[in-house]
């Protein structure tokens, strides 16, 4: 049975709440200060994207185990416009200068695993996991 908790993202303050939840969970899970900051930053980016581009959505945080490994999984979901050109959004350089902030490649680098499911008009679900080494 996995522990799971979530924050709805509606206002900018919810970004802070999601960060706080993520940092607490990361700390409880045993991550060091730097990894806590990385996980929190990843959540921050995902929540900000929801706030800026989808209007509203949700950040869920789960503890996960796999084959003896222990980690934290972030699920960011929204019913927003979806990502038009996924290939472009995943490109380096494309997002850092623009509005998407550190953007998807950044979140991918901060975490160990990363997956996007997006359909134009139907919203986006991003899953990212970090393992305790």
């Amino acid at each position, binding site marked *: 049975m996995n522990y799971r908790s979530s924050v709805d993202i509606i206002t900018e303050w919810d*970004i*802070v709440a999601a*960060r*706080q939840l993520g*940092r607490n969970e990361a700390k409880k899970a045993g991550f060091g200060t730097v990894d806590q900051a990385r996980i*929190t*930053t990843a959540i*921050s980016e995902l929540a900000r994207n929801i706030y800026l581009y989808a209007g509203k959505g949700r950040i869920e945080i789960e503890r996960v185990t796999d084959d003896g490994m222990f980690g934290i999984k972030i699920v960011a979901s929204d019913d927003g416009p979806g990502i038009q050109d996924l*290939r472009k959004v995943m490109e380096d*350089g494309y997002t850092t*200068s623009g509005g998407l*902030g*550190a953007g998807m490649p950044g979140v991918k680098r901060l975490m160990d695993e990363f997956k996007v499911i997006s359909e134009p008009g139907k919203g986006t679900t991003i899953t990212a996991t970090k393992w305790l080494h």
Partner: protein
Amino acid sequence: MPQEVGRQYKEIMKKYLESHSEEDLYVGQQFSRRFIEKEIAPEDVISIHKTAMIELHPELRNEVWDSFDFLIEMMIHYGLTLREHQSLIRKQEAIQIEMDVATKVQDTILKTKMPIVDGLDVGLVSQPARQMNGDYIYFLNGQNESSVAVADVIGKGIPAALCMSMIKYGMDGLENDNSNPRNVLEIINRIVEKSVDDSMFISMFYGKYDGENATFSYASAGHEPALHFNAKTGTFSELDAKGLLLGVKTDAVYEERSVMMQDGDFIAMMTDGVTETRTEEGFIEMEMIQEILAEVQDEPAQQMADHIYHKLAGLQNYRLSDDFTIVIFKKGTEKV
């Protein structure tokens, strides 16, 4: 460094040191992102941090201030790498612009004219998977006959583009008496072998429809077989012929075969981007392509090509893993 930046940094950190709130960290991090945009180096951040601490906690021991100086020294090379990054991004953007121009030039250079031959209906779809198309189609039109080369350049990007312009001009230079499929492949093979480095190969199917006697003759340089639909029996047969990929061996020889076309018959030539359509369940079967084509056997050739493209691209959510090209030669039911 504007003093204002240092003042704001101090205020944010002061609040954080008092309250330890996540909000301050969020504000701080958004602030740090603006630092990067303003090309403030990491060693500058340490210096700003040190100054803020001196103002907030002047009572701290000297070791703290010295340790920050040490940290600044450690960050100098990080700062350099960051500035190198910014210059590399600008370089990358310049290359992108060049590639866009090259694609446009290539498109104009490589454009080919669809044939108009009595009694032959032609359809074509060629969709690149990425920016530059590595599949290449060339039509050659004679009196009462029409030929097409369907090629797939193995290799990508700029070298592949140069390679295709070479094929195009090679074809342009063909004399009329050399236009039989086996001769064409032999000539183009020699050109390619001479000009191209060993890592680049080209597969090509060359088909020629002779309106006089309704015969389709063809040769293949290691290319996907074509499909011949027999309207009378409602069955498909594969058209394949022996031959090496272009560019492997100077004196390669190519088998030439031919087939008669009846009214309503069609021949579909394609690249492996069509036959190797990959869905979540794996590669599709050749039978599937035949079924899709059979569904629209009574449509004009262009509609048939569009139909199979949308069916197969749809299976991959329109995210092609390889360039997709299909050419359909269909013998009209009415002799014009």
